[in-house]
């Protein structure tokens, strides 16, 4: 009787001590485009984050501590993003996640830098990492590293001398268009037509007829998945047969689903895609579909990777230290062999840009076929 009581007491003490050793949860703050024009981007990003955190917590957390994230909605509005990041920083998170829109990143990055908190974001505009901010990190290629690869392919493989550019008129599309126009100039490739489109545009007849009139050697399409699909259909309808080149958003599985036959022959450079011929990515995709019932776009991958970047960096430091986090992520190489969650080997440079394998793919019979693997630089 008495020993029983004693044993119970002992057990209680031990488990309390274990709980104490586990420590308080590590707080992360996410500010993303959960409503408004960027809601698709933001919700993919959020779901990717939640999936990764759930996985890590199920395996005992990070350094024995659980991860906890708060999600705040920026309404796709930089002013609101600023307020929400301010709020997030006031609660002193370990790392700040998001936003996804480059404009919102631009307005919030100085705040995070001032607070000395690392910010892992989804924006792809070239200029974001060029202002010397020591706390800002990408999760995907910036346009300054993906567009030169596209331009090189158009010049070397397609041997095009004139190209029509179709872009969506938001910071994503305009950014890509500006960088690739500069790259084309280096190769003396003429921009035969420069066509801006609207997000959510349904009718591309006029845009395609402009391309037709310009008779380019190739077309570069840089719009979101849904518009890509409509664009491809219209290109086919107006019988444009020159090579179509794009980025992740032109050759994704979702585009194939929506555009059907019309997607065949489209090519693109792909930095991060759930269709990549990498086993870990295929596994990620299955897990994601199982949990959320849809196939994520690259933003889902970005959110997922952001969490594993935090995990790898923290494990390297051996402690949870917000102040030292950014320094430790700079120059870090994370190998998929030792950290499967990172999916592909990746290196972060001093600016917060990433270096990773890329692919050049073509849609053949409704399937993405990898034509060329662009190796990691170092």
């Amino acid at each position: 009787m008495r020993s029983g009581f004693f044993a119970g007491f002992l057990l209680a003490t031990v488990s309390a001590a274990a709980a104490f050793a586990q420590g308080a949860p590590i707080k992360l703050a996410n500010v993303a485009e959960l409503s408004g024009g960027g809601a698709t981007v933001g919700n993919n990003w959020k779901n990717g984050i939640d999936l990764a955190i759930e996985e890590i917590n199920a395996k005992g957390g990070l350094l024995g501590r659980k991860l906890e994230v708060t999600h705040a909605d920026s309404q796709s509005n930089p002013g609101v993003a600023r307020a929400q990041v301010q709020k997030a920083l006031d609660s002193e998170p370990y790392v700040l996640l998001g936003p996804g829109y480059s404009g919102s990143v631009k307005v919030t990055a100085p705040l995070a830098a001032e607070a000395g908190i690392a910010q892992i974001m989804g924006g792809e505009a070239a200029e974001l990492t060029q202002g010397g901010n020591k706390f800002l990190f990408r999760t995907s290629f910036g346009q300054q590293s993906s567009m030169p690869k596209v331009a090189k392919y158009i010049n070397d493989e397609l041997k095009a001398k004139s190209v029509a550019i179709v872009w969506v008129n938001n910071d994503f599309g305009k950014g890509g268009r500006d960088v690739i126009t500069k790259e084309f100039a280096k190769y003396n490739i003429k921009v035969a037509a420069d066509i801006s489109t609207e997000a959510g545009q349904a009718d591309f007849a006029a845009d395609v007829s402009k391309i037709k009139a310009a008779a380019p050697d190739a077309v570069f399409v840089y719009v979101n998945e849904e518009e890509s699909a409509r664009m491809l259909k219209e290109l086919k309808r107006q019988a444009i047969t020159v090579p179509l080149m794009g980025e992740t958003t032109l050759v994704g599985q979702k585009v194939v689903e929506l555009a059907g036959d019309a997607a065949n022959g489209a090519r693109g450079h792909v930095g991060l895609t759930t269709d990549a011929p990498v086993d870990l990515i295929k596994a990620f995709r299955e897990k994601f579909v199982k949990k959320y019932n849809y196939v994520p776009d690259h933003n889902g991958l970005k959110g997922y990777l952001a969490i594993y970047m935090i995990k790898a960096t923290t494990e390297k430091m051996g402690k949870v230290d917000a102040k030292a986090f950014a320094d430790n992520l700079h120059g870090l190489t994370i190998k998929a062999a030792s950290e499967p969650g990172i999916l592909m080997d990746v290196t972060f440079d001093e600016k917060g840009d990433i270096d990773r394998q890329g692919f050049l793919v073509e849609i053949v019979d409704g399937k993405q076929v990898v034509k060329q693997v662009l190796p990691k630089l170092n």
Partner: protein
Amino acid sequence: MTATGKYLRIALGVVVIAALIIVPMNFNRYGLFILSQWAVMTIAAMGLNLTLGYAGQVSLAQGAFVGIGAYAAAIMTTQGLPLVAALGVAIVLCFAIGWILGYPALRVQHHYLAFVTLAFSTLAFLVFRNEDWLTKGIYGISNIPRPNVLGFATNRPLPFYYFCLGSLALVSLAMWWLIRSPWGRAFVALRENPVRALSLGIDTRRYTLMAFAIGSALGGVAGTLYAPLTQYIDPVPFNLSLSLDLLMMVIVGGSGFFFGPFLGAMIAVLLPEWLRFTQGYYLMLYAVAVMLLLIYSPTGILGSLDRYLAERRTKAASALRAVAKSRLETAP
């Protein structure tokens, strides 16, 4: 209005103003940002209240005028010009555009101003986005400096909040004066009975136009504060939905009431923030709250309050009358 009622009102006003000054002193940066945003939006909504509540015209371009003011401030202050200069430009520009838009629209027919301003709102957005050379297009303008006011730097959140609050106070005083001036009386006469106003020799079209142009200029004033508040602007926040939001603030607060915009802006800016704890549901709940509020009091919060007070007064008066009557009857 009895003397005690008047004193009560003054006391209430003093308490509210003191609270607005003192309570935020130990707010965090986020709280101060939201309060500053409230002050800025209140100014814009006051402008629209003049157009809608006093002159009875619907403008769907108030957000565009805020955008014009914000771009004037962003472009000029990043070039090193003082914010006061930008303020002047914004006021003149918005007033002139308001006049030019309103003139033909009001010539034609009453409610066509709404349609013209709807078109203008989208046109303004397109210009903000497409004219890179001036507005830096979709990339937006960053590093907008905050001003020095009377030698005080307003870089920190608290001084900037006081700057916004001070601006709101100045605008409110100006508005108070305007409504009490002969012009303001003409505006009210217009609203109450346009036909009678016309027969009294008030040039209704001219006054309506004036109210719209002044209201638009106040949108510009709000814009010149918005730019240094966020310190980065791009075209997206100034699309049609901002104009619709501002319209909602005026209606929900009580259109035509001096303090309507204060309450309306509070609901539009603060209510979503209070509801954020519900995570993904907050905007849905916000929408439902606004609908319920409008169903319950279609004339806005102050409209309902006014009706309630009026009813109480009538009841009190009729009670008094009843008492007096019974006394008369019982009197020998």
